[in-house]
């Protein structure tokens, strides 16, 4: 199920299972919760169609294999896929890489240069990218970065230079109501707040329980200053196109909150 964010930039979305129990617990749920619908923490992938070349960032999970293949085909509308970028080799991100490479055998597989276990993920022959590497598609220019907050050591973040977009992969994820699916955050009736961000990061980046909070908060300050994006395109949330640095800044409170709690659950 896609949405075209900008001309030539397609957002592919996989809702995954219903996460209602995660956000309601024993109570009524947060203000954004709609009892008439499900709750999702999605997987997202992004297709950039440049003037000259095309690039897909991540592949969704194997549960959406047919959907991602048909959505990419429809979006490309006869064009070739030139690059398939794997942010990190976890199943919900890389689970359809082989199927996509089978469908687009001319596409170049692009993988993080970080970590040292590439051969265990079939990534040893990929084009390895990291800080300082770029791919110019014509119109869209993708820059690669060492991932700051991550799970797998073989990870990379990406930004898009022309539109000041940051793709922080497993950072800045959060749940949303079914009726909010494929909305931009500025289109929501309820704001993206600490509670939503906590539900995701308290599970996926659970290790914030054991960190020096002040050190992580300084890192977030640096990210805000360094990237200062106009857009955030997360792998597990909705696209942010207004005031993204406010939400990045909010992550400092999220980290402090996780650090005060026991493990709130798991995801994945």
């Amino acid at each position, binding site marked *: 199920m896609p949405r075209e964010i900008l001309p030539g930039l397609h957002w592919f979305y996989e809702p995954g299972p219903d996460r209602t129990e995660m956000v309601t617990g024993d109570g009524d749920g947060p203000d954004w919760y709609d009892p008439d619908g499900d709750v999702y923490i999605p997987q997202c992938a992004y297709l950039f169609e440049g003037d000259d070349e095309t690039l897909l960032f991540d592949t969704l999970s194997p*549960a959406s294999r047919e959907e991602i293949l048909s959505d990419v085909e429809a979006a490309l509308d006869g064009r070739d896929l030139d690059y398939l970028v794997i942010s990190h080799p976890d199943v919900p991100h890389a689970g359809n890489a082989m199927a996509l490479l089978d469908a687009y055998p001319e596409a170049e597989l692009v993988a993080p240069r970080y970590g040292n276990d590439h051969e265990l993920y079939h990534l040893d022959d990929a084009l390895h990218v990291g800080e300082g590497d770029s791919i110019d598609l014509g119109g869209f220019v993708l820059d690669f970065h060492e991932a700051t907050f991550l799970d797998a050591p073989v990870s990379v973040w990406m930004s898009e230079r022309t539109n000041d977009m940051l793709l922080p992969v497993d950072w800045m994820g959060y749940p949303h109501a079914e009726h909010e699916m494929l909305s931009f955050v500025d289109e929501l009736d309820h704001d993206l707040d600490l509670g939503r961000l906590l539900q995701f990061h308290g599970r996926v980046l659970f290790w914030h329980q054991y960190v020096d909070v002040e050190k992580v908060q*300084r890192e977030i300050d640096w990210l805000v*200053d360094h990237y200062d994006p106009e857009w955030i395109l997360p792998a597990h949330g909705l696209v942010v196109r207004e005031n993204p640095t406010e939400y990045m800044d909010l992550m400092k409170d999220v980290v402090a909150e996780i650090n005060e709690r026991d493990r709130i659950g798991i995801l994945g």
Partner: protein
Amino acid sequence: MTRHVTDDVQWLTVCYPHEDAHEHVSVYLIEHDGSYILVDSGSFHHEEQLAAAIEEATDGAGIDAIILSHSDYPHSGNISEFREEWDDVELVASSGSPEIQGLSDARRCIIGEDLDVLGRTFNFIDPPLADRSHTTWIRDSESGVLFTADGFGNYHAPGECEQLSSEFEDAVPEQAVYEFHRDNLVWLQYVDPDKLRTALDEIFDDHDVSAIAPIHGNPTLAEDVPVALDRLERAAARIAEEYDVPTVEDA
């Protein structure tokens, strides 16, 4: 390539080279009343070696269940192949979204709870040393072996591939523990070592552990556990000390 950690727990040790050192990508085999339970399935890289080791260790019977620590490919890479090789192999996994993780028919184990697998009780423990959200540490309640997935890993020298901690001159070296965790649990660059140690101590206070059984390291036997904990804490502290957050002026 097969070592007994306890009478009924065997380490099927396989590894691959990282420059001058090696990294284990092992699995463990538990025998229980004539059945065999595999902890993790290893990497596709070692499929043939592991299948042959299982055949030999089980006298041709094969495995009856796989308990998965997490779905990362070096741990889950041979699930389909082994379930095709041997009939009726039950899969147990902590994932709450098995279809998203490619584990659609897994029986779920809940982290923080116990589960009976083929008549044997396993404790599923929230791991302070992990990177994926659904990672579980697995304690075999009968043997007391604690399977720690990515935690307590270490690189090793080429001649140390099949050594237990007691066969090193002074247990598993701290430098090897440091290097592995630096490279693989990247978040440790932000760790508060005291918080980590407190969480680890709680686990070891609550459970009798006869051996620490990492997937990516040499097993540590009970007598070496205290020194392993101290070395891990110091390694984590060193990783954090060596990482400076860039200043805003550097941006």
